[in-house]
């Protein structure tokens, strides 16, 4: 079974974000980057499916040159090879544009299954996988918590709202967007890191993509709508003030 996993590189979680002076994006110079967390789960699911059913895992990433590091990490974890759609100006595209580029690369690979995370931790549009399926003309399912391969088809467990789930069957090839927590992430081994150095990363120049229909015009810090009373001081005095409030005003102690 041949599986393509679409991964994205995003700023490290809990980074201190500073907005560029032109307010079009954040300052990236002093940021660290890592794999988008739901994509890490998609990669892990692909690796586990390969271990069970054999085949090949191809990591696919659209991003600037710095994304090479995240791609290397995917290879170190066990992906067999990678495709890097490399361009420093991909931010001008919207998700439809990015999905168009990814679809071009996927078509050439003719995989049985395409996995990606359900959303990105930076933009959070949550639609690249679904649009990719539409452009490839294959079925899809989103927010997936379990994947079972049954010959030429799959049964997946899809998360619904409020603690409900649903099984869905569909023929292959198909696109699945993977929910965080579907599996337990592995760490790259020393051997894996060594092997990754000789694995192929095919760098591709992006083809023409459609102009954005959703244009990011301005990034800013949201205005607080609620006044939060912050208790200052060291841990002990702040805790004492909070407990006093909870006891005498909120009356829950």
């Amino acid at each position: 079974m041949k599986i393509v996993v679409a991964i994205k590189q995003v700023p490290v979680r809990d980074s201190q974000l500073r907005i560029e002076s032109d307010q079009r994006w954040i300052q990236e110079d002093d940021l660290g980057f890592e794999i988008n967390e739901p994509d890490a789960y998609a990669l892990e699911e692909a690796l586990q499916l390969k271990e069970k059913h054999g085949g090949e895992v191809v990591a696919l990433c659209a991003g600037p040159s710095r994304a090479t590091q995240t791609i290397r990490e995917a290879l170190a974890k066990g992906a067999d090879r990678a495709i890097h759609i490399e361009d420093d100006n991909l931010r001008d595209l919207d998700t439809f544009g990015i999905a168009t580029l990814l679809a071009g690369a996927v078509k050439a690979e003719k995989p049985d299954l395409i996995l990606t995370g359900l959303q990105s931790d930076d933009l959070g549009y949550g639609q690249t996988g679904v649009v990719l399926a539409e452009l490839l003309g294959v079925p899809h399912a989103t927010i997936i918590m379990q994947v079972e391969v049954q010959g030429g088809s799959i049964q997946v467990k899809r998360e619904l709202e409020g603690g409900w789930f649903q099984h869905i069957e569909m023929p292959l090839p198909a696109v699945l967007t993977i929910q965080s927590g579907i599996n337990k992430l592995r760490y790259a081994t020393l051997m894996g890191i060594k092997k990754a150095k000789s694995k192929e990363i095919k760098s591709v120049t992006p083809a023409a993509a459609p102009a954005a229909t959703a244009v990011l015009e301005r990034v800013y810090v949201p205005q607080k709508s609620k006044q939060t009373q912050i208790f200052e001081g060291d841990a002990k005095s702040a805790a004492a003030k909070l407990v006093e409030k909870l006891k005498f005003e909120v009356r829950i102690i």
Partner: protein
Amino acid sequence: MSGVLVVMEQQAGAWHRMSWETLAAGQQLAEQVGQPLYSAVVGQGVAALAGEAATKKLDKVHAVEHALLKDYTADGFTAALAQLIQAHAPSYVLFPHTYQVRDFAPKLAARFAASLISDVVAFHAGPVFVRQLFQGKLNADIRPAGAGPVFVSVQAGAFRAESLVEGAARVETFAPRLDAAEIRTKPHEPFREAARAVDLGAAELIVSVGRGIKEKDNIPVVEELAKAMGAELAASRPICDNGWLPMERQVGSSGQTVSPKMYMAVGISGAIQHLVGMKGSKTIVAINKDSNAPIFEVADYGIVGDLFEVVPALVEEVKKAKS
């Protein structure tokens, strides 16, 4: 091309509550752009629901009816709504940002060579749509471009259903042409994992723990605070994903929705998936090391600091206050 079309969501004849919030957003957008307002209800046997929607102020309700729309499938809903949109050419199509909409609306938008402007919290003159980035840490203004229609999904709680204006609208049935062969997925009945032993919905006090706790061995730190306060222990999604606490203690869009007298979020940054599950709480307390964490957006009281110092101090103070 004219009009605002609101796609309302129902399941087995019952409304998704966000449908009304989205219709309220539709009324506001239609007024702002000076265009008529339509809504669509998709399924089988939706006439009664369509009639209910028609009691609000809008111009027309489309009851999109077909036997193949009885159970939700991305293929069926996309094909049906694509036909409705082609027939009526609205300028804007609004959805509630539900799990179901996340499954098909991007596909529908792609059919019109557009991106879905998803999870929108507000809109301004233009219209320019406001959505959150980096899990709520930043906002962005998104301006639609291209030939249209503009596809937008609306975040839970961003618009108020109570603000809906009453009225009287026509109901029109729309029968899409669908073929069973074009529906490639086969959905099974929805199910719940197991009976819940913990009903967080009934808890008066909740102490909830998030990623800030760092590792499983640290959970007792917060557990002790819950015990001292006489509160139920709950968690954000990553904690349950890692198996540090059972899934039944999860609060948020994929877990339980709670509204206790007091909700204390410890080491929880406050991604929207968590906030929708607890922002109805009467009093919200946040303890977080990052003063910019979105949890402070909903908190009444807060302490900015290291939870490993603050929580033990709180345990001591609570015990003192109770004695």
